[in-house]
């Protein structure tokens, strides 16, 4: 059970308001995608959810646990796992060690860590020959898979994706999208992704939201975005499809 509530979240940096009253409710086991233009504050919202950035005003609740009590309640942060935009694999560790590292923090012994890590790495489609390589020695797609393995290995209740296909070619991007879809379907957990790529949102999500000027201006089924009545949302939809069409 993991329901996420963003309640009037405000955040500013040097008097520049990035989040200006974000309110949103994400149901348990829902796959929700937040869309928005680059620099609109999507990543900031995700970092606020994780407690990496503090809120200026408002609150974020996950199963009634507040992000403000994160320090006192370790259960809060234990609910999450995230696939970072740049993968954030530890470059001083091998791929296997990256996955084992997360597991070791939740009191698995060495042999258990090894077994689970290999299992997860195989599950995301990585071959054994890359397990003992360092992140810099493998491709971007493989790094993304390894980061996903690390994220799912610790069995989170909420899985977060930050621009999951950025920096990948269209074919690898498609493969990763399918992998993410399969992963969230199999795990049956709440999932929140942020992206500016409408194609990813349409493929992954149950519902989407549009973040613009620091607030959520629309939430609904992704396929209904085209005729939602909001000018910005419809423009966003059409611009994405025009660019995608031009690309094809």
């Amino acid at each position: 059970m993991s329901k996420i509530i963003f309640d009037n979240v405000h955040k500013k940096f040097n008097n520049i308001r990035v989040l200006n009253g974000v309110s949103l409710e994400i149901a348990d086991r829902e796959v929700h995608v937040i869309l928005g233009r680059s620099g609109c504050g999507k990543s900031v919202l995700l970092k606020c959810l994780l407690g990496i950035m503090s809120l200026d005003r408002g609150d974020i609740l996950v199963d009634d646990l507040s992000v403000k009590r994160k320090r006192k309640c370790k259960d809060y942060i234990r609910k999450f796992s995230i696939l970072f935009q740049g993968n954030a694999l530890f470059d001083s560790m091998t791929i296997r060690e990256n996955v084992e590292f997360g597991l070791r923090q939740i009191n698995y012994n060495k042999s258990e860590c090894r077994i689970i890590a290999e299992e997860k790495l195989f599950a995301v489609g990585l071959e054994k020959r890359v397990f003992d390589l360092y992140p810099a020695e493998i491709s971007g797609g493989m790094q993304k898979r390894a980061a996903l393995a690390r994220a799912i290995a610790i069995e989170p209740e909420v899985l977060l994706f930050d621009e999951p296909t950025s920096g990948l070619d269209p074919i690898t991007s498609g493969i990763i999208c399918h992998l993410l879809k399969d992963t969230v379907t199999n795990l049956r957990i709440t999932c929140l992704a942020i992206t500016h790529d409408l194609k990813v949102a349409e493929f992954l999500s149950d519902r989407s939201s549009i973040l613009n000027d620091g607030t959520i201006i629309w939430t609904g089924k992704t396929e209904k975005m085209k005729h939602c009545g909001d000018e910005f949302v419809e423009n966003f939809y059409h611009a994405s499809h025009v660019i995608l069409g031009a690309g094809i």
Partner: protein
Amino acid sequence: MVDVVEQNAFISTAVLLAILLIVSHVFAKISLFGRINNLITSLGTYALFVLQEIGRVTIFAAKGTKNCFVPPFYLSSIVNQVIIIGFYSLPIVGLTAVFAGMVLAMQMHVGFMRFNAEGSVASVVVISMTRELGPVFAGLMVAGRMSSSIAAELGSMRVSEQIDALVTLHVNPFKFLVAPRIIAGVLTLPLLVFVADVIGVLGGMIVSTTLLNFSVGSYIAQTIGSLELMDILSGLAKAAAFGFSIACFGCYHGFNSELGARGVGESATTAVVSSCICILALNYLLTAVFFGI
């Protein structure tokens, strides 16, 4: 008639020039005041910034120190840092010490010849090396080598979100990244300084016995005779403090690195500059404490 017109023209031109002169003078004065005002504002802003930074570094260092004593301890990370900071710094510290000892012996010999006190070279070399040159040179060398390296490493971890990833994997970045470096710095710097002391004294002995006609036996005897335990201990205590400051400044600037390659570069530079200044300031402070000046 023409004269009157010329006279009027001359007077009006003179008046105009005078007005222009006065106006420009007034503007120049305003501008000067403005400049002075700007200068004072800039100085005040900079002073406030420095004070804020000192506060932030102090809080960061306190947080890092606290995490050195609170489990879990990442032993492999500590050992790794001891090797990186300590073992890999040995060659550069050794080389610095040997040349410092050699130059010191030469200079002291030249200086003492003026007072017919050449016999005191060994004493001065050993006291200078153990009290001052060993710790300060080793500290500055390790600061140059390690402070930038730590800042760059942590800075790139910050940029590539690896530090955020640690948080999401339920790892306290202070325990995993900062505490091992502080522990390694505090443990290894005294060892490095001890080695530097020995090598520096050996350097001085090599010069004294080969170029300055000292006998090996008398040089060693004089070195041991003039050395007190406090000379060594004060140097080692200074080294521990220097190690602490090197690790703290490296970690602080890395942790607070601005995004991008430029930000990481700047944090590495700032880390070296601030840790070197801190070493020199701490050296003065600790000298005053240990030797009651």
